[in-house]
């Protein structure tokens, strides 16, 4: 089911880009706009799932650790799922994009992971079930050097710890 959903999304993106290119615009970069709001990634095509219907990651604006409406929505789903699966602990990984100095990005990743952790705690998940780790800019998921890739890399990812 997950597969079919992501497949549908990819299909949607392809369709969208076809339409965009069909409009014969000069800039092909316009096709990425459907997946970014401001500089925050909003797509789901690369998202792995913590569980069925529960996305594992949320995205951040450049240099920010503020949770967007969409991020909070995702984290509430994670909190619900964690409540139902009380034996599972998680690690929240914080990440930054490649356009910042290494040491600051380590701190920023830690701040992002904690923003996600704090939100999970607000929704009733015990703090001792959630550990955090920052990878700074060391573990990008997208290796491109463009705004879309960077927006996918500025993220926190909730992964099962056990």
């Amino acid at each position, binding site marked *: 089911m997950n597969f079919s959903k992501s497949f549908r999304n990819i299909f949607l993106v392809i369709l969208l880009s076809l339409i965009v290119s069909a409009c014969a615009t000069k800039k092909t970069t316009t096709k990425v706009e459907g997946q970014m709001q401001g500089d925050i990634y909003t797509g789901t095509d690369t998202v792995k799932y913590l569980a069925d219907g529960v996305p594992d990651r949320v995205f951040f604006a450049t240099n920010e650790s503020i949770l967007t409406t969409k991020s909070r929505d995702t984290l509430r789903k994670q909190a619900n799922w964690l409540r139902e699966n009380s034996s599972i602990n998680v690690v929240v990984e914080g990440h930054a994009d490649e356009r910042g100095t290494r040491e600051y990005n*380590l701190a920023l990743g830690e701040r992002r992971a904690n923003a996600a952790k704090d939100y999970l705690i607000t929704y009733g998940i015990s703090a001792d079930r959630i550990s955090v780790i920052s990878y700074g800019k060391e*573990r990008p998921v997208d290796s491109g050097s463009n705004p879309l890739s960077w927006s996918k890399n500025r993220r926190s990812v909730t992964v099962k710890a056990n």
Partner: protein
Amino acid sequence: MIRIFNLTFLLFLFLITKANSLIEIDITRGNLDPLPIAVSPLFQDDNSKKNSINELKVENIGSEISSVVENNLKTSGLFNPLSKEAFLQKPDIAHLKPRFEDWALIKAQALITGKVTIENKKLKVEFRLWDILAGREMMALAFTTVPSNWRRVGHIISDKVYERLTGEKGYFDTRIIYVSEEGPKTARVKKLAIMDQDGFNTKYLTLGNELVLTPRFNPTSQMVTYLSYFKNLPRVYLLDIETGTQEVVGDFPGMTFAPRFSPDGKKIIMSFAKDGNSDIYTMDLENRIVERITNHPSIDTSPSYSPDNKFITFNSDRSGFQQIYVMKSDGSNVKRISFGKGLYGTPVWSPRGDLIAFTKLHKGKFYIGVMRTDGSGERLLTENYYQEAPSWSPNGRVLIFYRETKSNDKGEGFSAKLWSIDLTGYNERQVQTETDASDPSWSSLLSN
């Protein structure tokens, strides 16, 4: 594990002539007219050549050493080593008494001559520096060491010549510790690596099983501090590169990172991140006492001491964005010093004390620059797509940093390399490494 520094040098000072020489080099400005210097191959007799082949598998160790010297002097940007093909005098004769007219004819202003012998598993090197215009000897030195140390002999000669002609200590008998990088961006394998300043004698200090970042030399010993993700716990470690012994620094309930030694080598200063906040801490390496230096809800990181240990420069986003600050080493009197347009990071205090080098991000470009310690006199030395993390040569004249190239949408075309640039902004050069490389840190002078 790896014994690199166990070789001692016996240094004999023959004589240093305090000649009122005509040649001197002003290194305070960009040198667009490097000093023409002739580096004569060091002479070696036939018997020594045989021993040289036996000991080192190199026939002419004398000319190998002179190549090391030549290359060092050339890369400093201050010297222009002349082509050996133009040399009229044979190395052994020149070493005894150069015919100054011959060397003046090829426009040399200085001449290095020397002699090498290998006997009883000992390498003995003599060298002399001559002032061609004044027609006199400026310096004469001799070294005895084990043959395998021959490259270091070349570096020490380079340092002596540099010091004699510029009036400042050299930086050639030094090493660079850095992070070696391999593999795709999304699964980069990183190892600690160490090499001579000129890119030779690379050794890998970790295997790449865990992520390692930001190694830094202790300015007073052969210790290194760095960040390791050993067992997926990012912590600051201490590594003795002579013995290979490693230990975690302190017992922190969270990530410690951005470590650096104090200039006296007695403390490690670093960031500790907890609950989304990073502050600066120190740990005394003798009594293990941990002190908190900053206490602010913003990110405080990349701390670096002034050479007199009295001040600390660091990076903070307490103003809302990454900027550079200076405070007393007890954490009081915090003052922001960066006020230009853009973001500032990775401040690092010059070993001379007068400047702070930094990385600046402005309008999508990254710059390496320097400013005075009160923030005045900002000078940007180099602009690129991505570069950061300057580290000073021990004499405070050169900066080494790393630079990354842009990758395309498939992630191709990415590379990370070490570069160096003069404080003057001239003489930008790529520093050769076996693999991709980042996070360089320059050691102190190993000898002198």
